[in-house]
């Protein structure tokens, strides 16, 4: 297991390298931040001077090399736009996204799994058909639309919830949380729903499919033959055996949500990583983009590792290897 982790960390480093390298190549096509920093009135001379200062006049492989040299020392540079060290910036935005994604995932799991179980057990019932139809809609509606719809209903018409922001947050060390204040929790509602709708639908379909498969397995038939209650057969045996692929997919989902909850965060002005990277792209804030992409690679690899560990926890057969 230890060697597994070591091997993983090796591949993590490689992934981060490749991602960061590719991002430097891409930067060439995005434009540069010079105009955003100097303003429209800067002369050609001043622009060239700033490009030299920032090293943007260098070919991208040299820029990448310099980035690597600094990154090894833990210095990802400072944001062109926010003017603070990139790491500090990313860490300050991380809690908002993690809380949002965490809550959305909890909501999605606690709604999606029961729905999936229900549909697996009564695939032909009326309620199942309705749920399946809803989930199809949930999978196909763009997040942007869900978000705007919620805002129109709950902010503009009913005026119950705030259309933007995180509400009041409380600092716990470097972590900021909205979970401890009323306005913070209220602010979570719409973004969480927006993010969760797709996840609920996806988890429901996944659980349903897997569980229907498992329900045909011999050990389920044998569990029934042993006289176990339906509840025990369905939940303790069938559901548990259906969860492995769910863990994988949900893990990957959490990863991509943390990395790319961009639409949802943009709609609700949620001050997290998604909004940060969106603004960084608009500004050509290369240090933020490079560090962010490298960290996203790192995050994904970590999540993969966690998913594997969860496998070990759920499935005893894997422990032998």
């Amino acid at each position, binding site marked *: 297991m230890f060697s597994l982790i070591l091997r993983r960390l090796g591949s993590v480093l490689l992934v981060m390298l490749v991602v960061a390298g590719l991002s430097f190549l891409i930067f060439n*096509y*995005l*434009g*540069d931040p*010079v*105009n*955003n*920093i*100097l*303003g*429209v*009135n*800067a*002369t*050609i*001379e*001043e*622009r060239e*001077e700033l490009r030299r*200062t*920032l*090293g943007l006049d260098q070919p991208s492989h040299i820029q990448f090399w310099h980035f690597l040299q600094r990154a090894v020392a833990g*210095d990802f*540079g*400072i944001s*062109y*736009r*926010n*003017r*603070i*060290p990139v790491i500090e910036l990313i860490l300050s935005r991380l809690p908002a996204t993690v809380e949002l994604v965490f809550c959305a995932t909890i909501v999605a799991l606690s709604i999606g799994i029961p729905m999936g179980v229900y549909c697996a057990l009564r695939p032909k019932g009326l309620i199942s058909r309705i749920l399946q139809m809803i989930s199809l809609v949930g999978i196909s509606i763009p997040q942007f639309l869900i*978000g*705007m719809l919620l*805002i*129109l209903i709950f*902010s*503009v018409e009913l*005026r119950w919830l*705030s*259309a*933007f922001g995180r509400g*009041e947050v*409380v*600092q*716990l060390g470097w972590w900021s949380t909205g979970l*401890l*204040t009323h*306005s913070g929790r209220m602010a979570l509602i719409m973004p969480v729903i927006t993010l969760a709708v797709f996840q609920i639908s996806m988890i429901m379909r996944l659980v349903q499919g897997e569980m229907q498969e498992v329900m045909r397995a011999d050990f389920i038939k044998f569990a029934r033959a042993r006289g176990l209650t339906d509840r025990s057969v369905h939940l303790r045996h069938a559901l548990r055996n259906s969860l492995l692929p769910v863990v994988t997919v949900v893990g990957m989902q959490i990863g991509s949500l943390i990395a790319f909850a961009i639409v949802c965060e*943009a*709609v*609700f*002005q949620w*001050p997290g990583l998604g*909004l940060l990277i*969106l*603004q960084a*792209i*608009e*500004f*050509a804030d290369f240090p933020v983009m490079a560090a962010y992409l490298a960290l996203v690679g790192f995050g994904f690899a970590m999540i993969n590792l966690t998913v594997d560990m969860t496998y070990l926890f759920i499935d005893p057969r894997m422990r032998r290897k």
Partner: protein
Amino acid sequence: MIRSLLKPLILAASIAAFGATADAKTLRFAESQDIASMDPHAGRDDFALSLLCNVYEGLVRWNADLKLEPALAESWEIISDTEWKFNLRKNVKFHNGNTFNADDVIFSYHRAGDPGSPFAGLLEPIAEITKVDDYTVIFKVKRKYALLLNDFAGWYIMDKEFQESIGAGKPLDLSSNAGGAMQTQANGTGPFKLVERQPDVKTVLAVNPDWWDERKHNLDEIVYTPIANNATRVAALLSGEVDFIRNAPPQDLARIEGTSGMKVMRGPHLRTIFYGMNQQGDTLKGSGVEGNPLKKVEVRKAIAMSIDVEGIKRSIMRGNSNPVATQLAPQMPYYDAALDVRFPYDPDGAKALLTQAGYPDGFTLPITCPAGSFINDEQICQATAGMLAKIGIKAQLNMVTPVQYDTGLPAGEFDFYMLGWAGLPTIDPYNIFSATVHSPTEKLGAWNPKGYSNARVDELIIKIGEETDQAKRQEMISEVVKTQRDEVGKIMLHQQFLTWGMTDKVNAIVPGDEYTRFWYYTMN
């Protein structure tokens, strides 16, 4: 345990939220982005300065009618062609209680003007600054210069003692890892002071009770929230969560105006929108014809005559634009109404001109268009393509992001491009000419690469920068405007309108430079 630790924090937060008294006037203001920093020297970024003007002040400032008036300087006199003496205002306090004096002006000059600072270009004409006494300074300029006061309106004075105490004696150098003290701190002399700032989340300003000027506004607090998404920002206004949004999206104006308790305030923008083009290159890449058709004035005129700018105003701008013939908006000083006469919209005449120029079958024109830099920029480019098709010119649209656009345009990568220019922060034709009309050099014509070039015009532009006599300036400015118009140096479109959405409670002013001068605002 954790609960009891948190209690004071939560309490503090709720006091911050509800502490204001019932009749306190809080203006909640949303904008599409946050300002990059509270440092007014960190970038020559009109967006940031349009908000920071409430916190910091310059020696002079623009009033509600965009006329210069004294601010931290009470008065000034021109001692010689190259020497300006400024008498500083006494009894002015920074927000932290420090007294404003000549040392702060000198400090701010060096902070903003030293090589490497983004403001070095703005303060470039200044050769030297001397302190006469605590409230008198003399600026020596390198050459005769007409626009010192205009420039000073965009250069804000900071507190020497404070800046040095927080280690922000220089504007942040992006190439080093210096920390961002100015992200969340500000100490100016302006009508409002910073009380809270979470970058990209919220900035709270409170009234400065010790402001030197007479208070005309009745605001106690300004809460500024960036909301990037247009639809969400409008929703926040409609739901009553914010009182005021600048630049309401054109498609939402009707909805805002149709909501009871809401209004849209409009005003002419100083910015005029036009197409610039490659008039220097010997060939036009991708045109499918020999040579560079855009070099011929007949071709440029034909393009100008083919664009139905009234149609664009009607169907794309929904009335919120004003067609113009020259780069000077009517609200710009030295505007000459007699010259503001457009070429007639005449596709047939345009076609005839094209034939006369040797392009009876037209050619292919690559048009580069920013997606999101100007109001309805994409739609206008698409409409233009349709109009050009009628005279046989096949437009090839190339949409780019604003940042690609801002990088590629000064680099001369585009041959035909949409551009808008407002002449900020100088608010003088010289700014427009030097950036977009003068032939490109190291210091001038940055936004005119490969573009319009006329030696006489270049010469006039330099003189316009030096001449202080208004009548002489008017004469020269009109000549530049007329020459460029007659030679079709630009294909002019229109002047944008500002459309600011707000609740009925807010009384705002809508100046052509888009600055939010909150000291003129009141709330019912």
